[in-house]
């Protein structure tokens, strides 16, 4: 092999996987991983590291894989990342680490994500755990939300010796990792639960069923329950709708509802007690990761699925791999198309959707070309379900009940990037709650930064 082409990763056959919820990508085995590792040039000035938001020492761990030292590779990654099995699966590598890899200039970049996943999965099978705290500090820190930002922040603080409690509103920990991203991309029992157990094994306490702002406020946690610092990693869970006619018809869902029913409540499983609609023909509106997940979930529940997105293929914000997988599975993309109205029958059930064709206009300030309607180009798509996947914004439950916590126009909590410090003393924040809907790895990076910020704050207090 000349080294220009990456070692292909084994995947479940597209036809077969379109009817099940098992993981699509099967990952590398030892031989494949060690082969792929030899493609890394072990650059002196590794560009890939600059592309990784948590600066994993990529060449180092890849050399360790090459030498067959999985434990060493795992400890190298663990210095920077608390959830490698997750990131190896869901990071948009093409625009991060792999996007910068010099191998990518001529040929395929090194499969950094797949190697990271191999290390994490193998370490888990071998029972290797991240190293815990050596010395306990007698200080309590509360972490709100158990998504990637909260888990990372809690894990790092526990390693420093703090007494950490995570408060989670739902009945299960993991945030978007359990309620949003489907099983076929991120197995829950095999991967997510194990990563959460790792965090707990560091001594982190977890209290589920607590909605901060409702069950107890941040002020009370600090004044009455003895927490000296608080990290807010509450995500951006509030779904948007389009406000077009017909949106309240039966068969119109937010992607969050559809995915939560399927993932958190396990409705995809015939034995689950949670009902979910199994559409025959379903339109998913949007083009991000969330839209791809909703579309591929609906497909697996038996639907013919159309993704309706107002920009073009190039502009699809979803990971390239997911778009590719979706196409292979038979999802139909109606690009440069926007919904105008949803129709329902006399009983209120969705019967179809009217869309309009779009063209891309001049680039706007953000450099993205904004779509404009083509007059008179309306057309109908017949369907029995519509899933709205138009993005989400932070939930006001915390900002509206915490005095002195500043938020911006987009309802995001204002926090310093380097430390997570908010406008309120002792309160830090990070992840989607600060940036708006972003990525797992950025949320983790923010959780890490805040753990450092909290440590500095408490050490100087």
């Amino acid at each position: 092999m000349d080294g220009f082409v990456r070692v292909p990763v084994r995947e479940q056959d597209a036809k077969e996987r379109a009817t099940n919820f098992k993981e699509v990508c099967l990952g590398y085995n030892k031989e494949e991983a060690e082969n792929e590792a030899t493609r890394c040039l072990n650059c002196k000035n590794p560009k890939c590291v600059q592309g990784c938001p948590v600066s994993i020492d990529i060449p180092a761990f890849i050399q360790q894989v090459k030498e067959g030292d999985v434990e060493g590779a795992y400890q190298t990654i663990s210095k920077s990342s608390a959830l490698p099995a997750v990131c190896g699966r869901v990071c948009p590598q093409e625009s991060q680490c792999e996007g910068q890899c010099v191998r990518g200039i001529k040929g395929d970049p090194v499969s950094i994500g797949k190697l990271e996943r191999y290390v994490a999965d193998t370490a888990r099978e071998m029972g290797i755990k991240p190293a815990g705290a050596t010395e306990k500090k007698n200080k309590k820190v509360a972490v709100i939300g158990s998504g990637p930002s909260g888990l990372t922040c809690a894990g790092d603080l526990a390693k420093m010796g703090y007494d950490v409690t995570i408060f989670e509103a739902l009945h299960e920990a993991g945030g978007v990792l359990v309620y949003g991203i489907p099983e076929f991309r991120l197995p829950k029992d095999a991967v997510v639960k194990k990563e959460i157990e790792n965090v707990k094994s560091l001594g982190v306490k977890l209290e589920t069923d607590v909605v901060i702002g409702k069950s107890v406020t941040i002020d009370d946690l600090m004044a009455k329950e003895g927490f000296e610092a608080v990290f807010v990693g509450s995500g951006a869970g509030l779904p948007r709708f389009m406000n077009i006619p017909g949106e309240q018809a039966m068969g119109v869902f937010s992607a969050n509802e559809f995915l939560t029913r399927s993932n958190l409540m396990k409705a995809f499983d015939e034995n689950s007690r949670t009902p979910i609609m199994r559409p025959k023909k379903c339109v998913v509106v949007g083009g991000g990761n969330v839209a791809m997940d909703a579309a591929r979930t609906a497909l697996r529940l038996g639907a013919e699925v159309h993704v309706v997105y107002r920009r073009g293929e190039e502009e699809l914000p979803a990971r390239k791999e997911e778009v590719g997988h979706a196409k292979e599975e038979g999802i139909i993309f109606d690009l440069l198309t926007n919904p105008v109205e949803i129709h329902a029958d006399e009983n209120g059930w969705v019967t179809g959707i009217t869309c309009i064709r779009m063209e891309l206009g001049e680039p706007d300030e953000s450099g993205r070309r904004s779509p404009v309607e083509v007059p008179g180009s309306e057309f109908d798509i017949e369907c029995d379900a519509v899933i709205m996947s138009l993005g989400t914004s932070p939930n006001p439950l915390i900002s509206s009940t915490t005095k002195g916590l500043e938020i911006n126009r987009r309802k995001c909590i204002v926090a310093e990037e380097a430390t997570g410090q908010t406008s309120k003393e002792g309160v830090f924040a990070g992840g989607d709650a600060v940036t708006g809907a972003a990525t797992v790895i950025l949320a983790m990076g923010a959780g890490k930064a805040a753990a450092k910020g909290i440590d500095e704050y408490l050490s100087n207090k």
Partner: protein
Amino acid sequence: MFKILEANELANNIFQMIVEAPRVASACLPGQFLIIRVDEEGERIPLTICDYDREKGTVEIVVQAIGAETFKLGKLKAGDELADVVGPLGKPSDLCEESIEDLKKKKIVFIAGGVGTAPVYPQAKWLKEQGVDCDVIIGAKTKDLVILEDRFKKVCNLHITTDDGSYGRSGMVTKALQDLWDEGNKYDHCVAIGPMIMMKFVCKLTQELGIPTIVSMNPIMVDGTGMCGACRLTVGGEVKFACVDGPEFDGHKVDFDQAMNRMKLYKTEEGRLLLKAQEGDTHHGGCGNCN
């Protein structure tokens, strides 16, 4: 896990339970609700908080068994545990926000239908504690389904009406309200809690009578924290999420027909599960009602 300390059947398939849930008990106010899961595989079901004891750290729920989950819940006994109890959710009743002086000037009537009777209780009790009088109309299909009568009598002027006339006044709650109004009770504030169809007709009447009316909406919910949008309804032409913007809304602005329609969403699937739960091992299909 959340321990059940007391469990009683108040009427046929209506159960009252006292559950240990210290965080909910310490923070809740009338009008709010909680979400429970009966067991690890259970659905999340929203229930109104009917009473609470901050010192003991307990909350009281009253639940009507109508589907798979509530049916399971009804079978639990004191000493059993619920997998999850989370809350308090939703906004407290508007009445809690008003000044006591203003409340004392008002003539308030609560209209409670069926299992909606339970959520009215904490509000009437709270008013009593603030020294405010109120009228409560409880409507039930028949005498056996009237619940919490003795407790209500201690906190309000109680009027009971049954559809079949087997107890109290005769007829639906709307008739009772009209009669009371005609008898000279000029109410200036109404709170109606019960089945959506009842709330719809109460609102129709109070609109004619010119009584501002608050209703407590109970659409299908999943998370109860504003994350899924399942609970959305249209109020005054705007989309609201009942779990965070409500559950109480101005009844004259709610689009009831749409809300009632949306309740049908999971009916068929749910019906099947109920059958399965009730018939247990005897349910193998073949009856023609499912599959």
